[in-house]
């Protein structure tokens, strides 16, 4: 049981999807409840992972499962190989934790073909969890691409006015990147095989040990980095995000912000950086520069937005910039801060999108100018909104601060000192755009007649927000709960990147590795043409 906990957790939502498809389409309530239950069960399944003390002591992969999957002689070998360490642990839990909340948030928001929506949500959850736990690049890629499909439909079917453009843009934008990564993955594999590297399938952990030629690393890294950069999204390939976020239904935006963006950052930390350390060193300044530009740029652009949702979307660009900077600091403070900030961003920005959803459901507009003085009408909402805003600003003793502080401190301790200095201005700017938005929405006279009789948050909506608030304070006041479990894994990853772990010699993994070493022969290229090919 416990050794299959990851598979169980990952594929349970898929099972749930089938159940949903069985149910009659008419009964929206039933469908929503079922989905809620399924996601909750998934969350419960994933809980033991969080409680397991093993992560405190070892940074290796745990709960690993391995099964040969596609094995075609000397051609290639793909395995179903999954595992989890202190890094993916929190992202997995973030996913399972955020899903029930998003389902709850759809209660009123989604009324047309609920069945499809719920099915897609569950499919999406499986895809996201799968991507976080895959240790085989091929498997990872499958889940990575699979994620696009549900989100594409979510945006396209339940989205706003400009949804078609947004959906198609989202799909193609992201796919272009990942297709290049696919080429890189295959190339990496055959390079490994043909140069006699011992790899068991597309296993990342084996690829870590390859000593790739720097020139080669450069190209492969670029392919990976580009693909992940689009997902993050890093400046300047972030332009799909505002559209996607703005058009997506609330649940979609929440998932997109809370989990899917983390795919990119996670991809950097798990794949791009440790696989190609030399290339990373080569591009580090440029990438750091892009992240810092992203921080400032996102903030400046967010400041001038007229649409609340777009504003939050751009703020994501800024926050993710922080995360990337933390990763590139390449020291345990920065990287741990980055991982923590991934979780924080998931919670805070997720909460912000939910909040935007609340007022959107009430007023069916997202234009800041349409609001004003709401706090008179909706005091509870005002309080929650304020707390979330502050956590997104990074007020000390709330979650945002710990992450940002560690990231900046880490960056400052590393070679990226000056980048850190520039990035710190983001602290000022975030206050500007968030508070300005809060002021324009919540403060002032309640003069717009349409806002005169808005209802304050319902019990359900408060229940949606409460768990998030709990974590906002928890991470802010006692982040060690999370830090202590990610520290060993982070150190592992860092030693991987710094190349200390790379010195170890290849361990033979599968028996026919020697034949794999030989490149499958080529027809008739040589004039004599090997006779054994002929009839």
């Amino acid at each position, binding site marked *: 049981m416990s050794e299959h906990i990851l598979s169980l957790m990952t594929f349970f939502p898929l099972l749930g999807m089938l159940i949903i498809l069985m149910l009659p389409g008419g009964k929206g309530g039933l469908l929503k409840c079922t989905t809620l239950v399924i996601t909750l069960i998934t969350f419960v399944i994933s809980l033991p992972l969080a409680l397991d003390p093993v992560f405190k002591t070892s940074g290796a992969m745990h709960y690993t499962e391995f099964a040969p999957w596609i094995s075609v002689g000397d051609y*290639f070998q793909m395995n179903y190989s999954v595992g989890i360490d202190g890094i993916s642990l929190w992202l997995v839990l973030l996913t399972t934790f955020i899903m029930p909340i998003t389902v709850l948030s759809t209660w009123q928001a989604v009324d047309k073909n609920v069945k499809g929506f719920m099915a897609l949500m569950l499919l999406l959850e499986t895809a996201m969890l799968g991507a976080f736990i895959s240790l085989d690049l091929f498997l990872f890629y*499958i889940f990575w691409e699979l994620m696009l499909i549900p989100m594409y439909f979510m945006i396209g079917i339940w989205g706003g006015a400009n949804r078609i453009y947004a959906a198609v843009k989202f799909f193609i934008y992201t*796919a272009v990147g990942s297709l290049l990564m696919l*080429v890189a993955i*295959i190339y990496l594999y055959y390079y490994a095989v043909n140069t006699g590297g011992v790899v068991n399938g597309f296993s990342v952990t084996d690829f870590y040990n390859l000593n790739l030629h720097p020139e080669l690393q450069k190209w492969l890294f670029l392919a990976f980095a580009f693909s992940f950069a689009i997902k993050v999204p890093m400046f300047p390939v972030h332009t799909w995000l505002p559209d996607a976020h703005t058009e997506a239904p609330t649940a979609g935006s929440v998932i997109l912000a809370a989990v899917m963006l983390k795919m990119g950052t996670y991809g950097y930390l798990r794949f791009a950086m440790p696989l190609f350390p030399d290339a990373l060193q080569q591009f580090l300044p440029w990438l750091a520069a892009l992240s810092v530009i992203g921080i400032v740029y996102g903030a400046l652009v967010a400041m001038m937005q007229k649409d609340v949702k777009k504003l939050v979307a751009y703020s994501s660009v800024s926050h993710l910039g922080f995360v990337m900077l933390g990763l590139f600091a390449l020291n345990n403070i920065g990287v741990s801060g980055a991982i923590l900030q991934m979780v924080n961003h998931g919670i805070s920005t997720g909460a912000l999108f939910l909040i935007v959803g609340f007022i959107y459901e009430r007023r069916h507009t997202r234009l800041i100018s349409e609001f004003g003085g709401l706090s008179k009408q909706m005091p509870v909402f005002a309080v929650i909104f304020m707390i979330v805003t502050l956590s997104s600003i990074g007020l000390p003793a709330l979650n945002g601060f710990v992450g940002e502080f560690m990231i900046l401190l880490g960056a400052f301790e590393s070679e990226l000192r000056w980048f850190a200095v520039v990035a710190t201005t983001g602290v000022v700017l975030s206050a500007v755009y968030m508070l300005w938005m809060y002021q324009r929405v919540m403060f002032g006279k309640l003069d717009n007649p349409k806002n005169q009789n808005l209802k304050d948050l319902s019990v359900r909506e408060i229940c949606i927000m409460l768990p998030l608030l709990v974590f906002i304070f928890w991470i802010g006041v006692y982040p060690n709960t999370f830090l202590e479990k990610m520290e060993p894994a982070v150190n592992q990853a860092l030693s991987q990147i710094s190349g200390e772990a790379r010195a170890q010699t290849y361990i033979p993994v599968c028996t026919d590795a020697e034949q794999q070493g030989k490149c499958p022969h080529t*027809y008739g290229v040589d004039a004599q043409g090997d006779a054994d090919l002929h009839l």
Partner: protein
Amino acid sequence: MENMVQTAMQNVNFAAIMPSLVLTCFCLALLLLNAFVKRGSTSYAAFFSLVALGATACVSYLAWDNPQFGFAGQVALDNYAVFFNFIFILAAALSILMSDAYLKREGYPVGEYYTLILFSTVGAMLMASGTDMMTIFLGLEVMSIALYVLAGFFRRQLRSNEAGLKYFLLGAFSTGFLLYGIALIYGVTGTTNVADIGSYLAMNHHLVSDPILVGGMILLATGFLFKIAIVPFHMWTPDVYEGAPTPIAAFMSAGPKAAAFAAFMRVFLIGLGSMHSTWVGMLWVLAVLTMIVGNFIAIKQTNLKRMLAYSSIAHAGYALVGLVASNAVGVSAVLFYMLAYTLMNIGAFSILVLAGKVGEDNLTLQGFAGFGYKRPVLAVLFTICLFSLMGIPPSAGFTGKFFIFAGALNAGYVWLAVIGVLNSAVSLYYYLRVMVYMYFRSPEEEFDWVQLKPGATLCAVISVVGVLVLGIVPGAVMALARHALF
């Protein structure tokens, strides 16, 4: 005198042509049957031909791992041929499944239709197992002549006539090139037997750059590339697919294309393997051109049949990449891809058959607005096929492309692979657009004319299941494809 006869008789080995033989017999039987059954219903013929195909499949299966050679090296029923036979049979069976209701709807309930499909299948099988230019040529013609008729089968429909005529004229034209190529190669090597050509050229390597031989090689390639629909020999494809009856378009895009590939690869890898350096560059360029032209023009299409025609050109380009790689991975990837493509493309066509009105004027993007809400099940099946054509996992399309590009990269054709994936990124656009219309637009029609005809529906379901299976556990089939290499 006597021992001459002896040797001749020794060379006769009916086992080597058994599948074609069996199927031919069934065809003749069906022809007679048609003569005695009164017009109106063709279900019996469809059923009969399915049985025929089943039988043929069994017969071919006997030859798996038990290769049969005969007729002085004219035919070889090796695993390679058997694998392709299965593709042809599958393609034919699926098209036949969707045809019955279709013919009724369009008002051509004629049994000969099935006979013709079976005949062209026979031709395809001959091509796949032919190891001599003569057999290959014969197979090609048997296949094509049947297809000429099928393309123009709706004889009261001008579009269909036009499709048939265009296909016929251009097909015959390309045959001319093919034959001239064969003749020239014959002139240089003194034989029409593929293996002998190969060994001859391997021994006299100086001939490889001989202009006559090179010219012959290219003319020969032209003949095959025409059938595969490779730029610049692709032009007939959209017109013919659009004009031909939909099931025939589906069949043509799968079976004959695969057959042409089968023969093409056999001839070029074994017969002209020594000239690899000469033709690989040419195919590299043609593959790139084909992918680009196919995808780029498909973007502008509004008629779905025509769009699928262009997409089939693009897919021929992807498949050709595997041949350019011309290593074990690449070639078996082509085998796999042909199977995958057969499934996903015929699946897509079967939805068109089900969704079409009489005359099929509604098979446009606009015509599919809101299809997803009115006919959810069909729409989902269609969607899966389209995602597979895009190459999004987990689908046969993805694994197929993955293997193809794996071959290319293994052989070191990085840029070819990059161009390939970028092209499939382009292709996303027009496939996604279909879904945009199906799901993101509100329905304008009730689609009440759409009934789930058992045959076509079964066909769709089979294809989709196949697509998913090949997408999730492609290992076994790919292993077969690997095992099927000559």
